[in-house]
């Protein structure tokens, strides 16, 4: 049986762990707030952008024959790229394993169709996992997800994806990110980046249509050229919002995981204290028994 000293030491250790997890929880909470604010700050831009692009697309109309290259689906899909976003650091519950599981499912499915798959990894966890399994990793970017990053990161990444798409190296590009649904729920989500799927509207922004008669835009340069200018931006916007969502999700997941850990520590301390008290009481009782036994013997 564990001695009193052992139990005491264990309680001490758990208490220290608790302190750490609690601190991590608070750090994650403050980072989460920052990430959420960033998401909020990005929303006006994203909404407006979607609105403009939407009205422009409507105006040009869907001419199946002359789609801009970024919009045109390829007839034969030989290579598919996946932009995978995970966190750099662990201790955030099943956050990364969920993302990785989804990625593996996606890659297996594509691989099953005889399509070659390539990975672009943002985040150490995903890269390490797939590198160990010898997947084809095109490039990796560490130190972005969950940290401070600007729109230029999305531009550089998006530009790279567009180049390899237009260059014919790849026929489809998807992005796998963690959608921030709520504090308690983050869902791994696959989104097609290229070719750009039908320009969809961001939810809850299309009330502007009802304002009344909105005449057509005068465009400079002409609508088609303008579209060509704006389409790459659509990819950047998507990548950026994916990064923001994933970062926010990471902090939320870590906060929840650390909250759990802290309460587990608390539980453990309670039960260990109980064991400690019982053991102490047992020792006292045993000592008393000894003394009483000795006294009885002397009497006799």
């Amino acid at each position, binding site marked *: 049986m564990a001695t009193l000293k052992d139990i005491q030491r264990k309680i001490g250790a758990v208490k220290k762990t608790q302190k750490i997890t609690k601190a991590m929880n608070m750090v994650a909470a403050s980072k989460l707030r920052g990430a959420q604010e*960033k998401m909020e*700050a*990005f929303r*006006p*831009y*994203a909404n*407006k*952008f979607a609105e*403009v692009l939407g009205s*422009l697309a409507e105006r040009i109309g869907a001419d199946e024959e002359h789609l801009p290259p970024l919009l045109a689906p390829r007839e034969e899909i030989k290579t598919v790229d996946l932009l995978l976003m995970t966190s750099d650091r662990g201790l955030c519950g099943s956050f990364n394993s969920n993302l990785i599981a989804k990625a593996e499912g996606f890659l297996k499915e594509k691989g099953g169709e005889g399509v070659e798959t390539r990975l672009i990894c943002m985040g150490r966890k995903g890269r390490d996992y797939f590198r160990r399994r010898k997947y084809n990793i095109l490039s990796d970017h560490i130190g972005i997800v969950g940290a401070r990053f*600007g*729109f*230029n990161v*999305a*531009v550089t990444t998006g530009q790279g994806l567009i180049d390899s798409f237009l260059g014919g190296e790849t026929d489809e590009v998807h992005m796998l990110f963690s959608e921030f649904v709520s504090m308690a729920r983050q869902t791994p989500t696959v989104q097609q980046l290229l070719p750009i799927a039908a320009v969809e509207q961001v939810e809850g922004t299309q009330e502007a249509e009802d*304002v009344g008669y*909105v*005449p*057509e*835009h*005068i*465009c*400079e*340069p002409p609508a088609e050229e*303008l579209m060509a*200018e*704006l389409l790459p931006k659509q990819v950047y*916007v998507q990548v*950026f919002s994916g990064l923001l969502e994933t970062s926010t999700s990471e902090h939320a997941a870590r906060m929840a995981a650390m909250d759990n850990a802290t309460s587990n520590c608390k539980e453990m301390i309670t039960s260990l204290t109980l064991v400690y008290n019982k053991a102490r009481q047992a020792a006292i009782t045993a000592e008393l028994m000894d003394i009483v036994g000795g006294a009885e013997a002397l009497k006799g």
Partner: protein
Amino acid sequence: MAGKLMLEVVTPDKSVVSEEAQIVVAPGEYGEFGVLPGHTTFLTTLKTGMLRYNDEGGNERLVFVNGGFAEVMLNTVTVLAESAERRRDIDIERARVAMKRAEERLAEATKREDVDFQRAQAALQRAIARLKVAGTG
């Protein structure tokens, strides 16, 4: 006057300007253009450069804009830029350093088609525009 004109300058990071203006002059792809209240709907890409507007009190304000486009609709000018800074928020030191660095890179680069060359050129343009807006260029 056909109502009032609203100016919104939005970047992915934040909303830089959101206020009423008397007139807005922006660096359009095909040259500078001015917008007064009652302007027809208009959509254009913007060059890296300076956006000017007069606020309600008639004071001229300068804003640096980079890599964006502008939409004029229903008396609202919306500028979506990759980056934008009001004159007072411009980091002059940083712009100077960026300018110097870009110039050095341009001197080194030999091939004009080079990606690095184009990048340095864009960086130089940004730095010059920033300094111009800050009034020290």
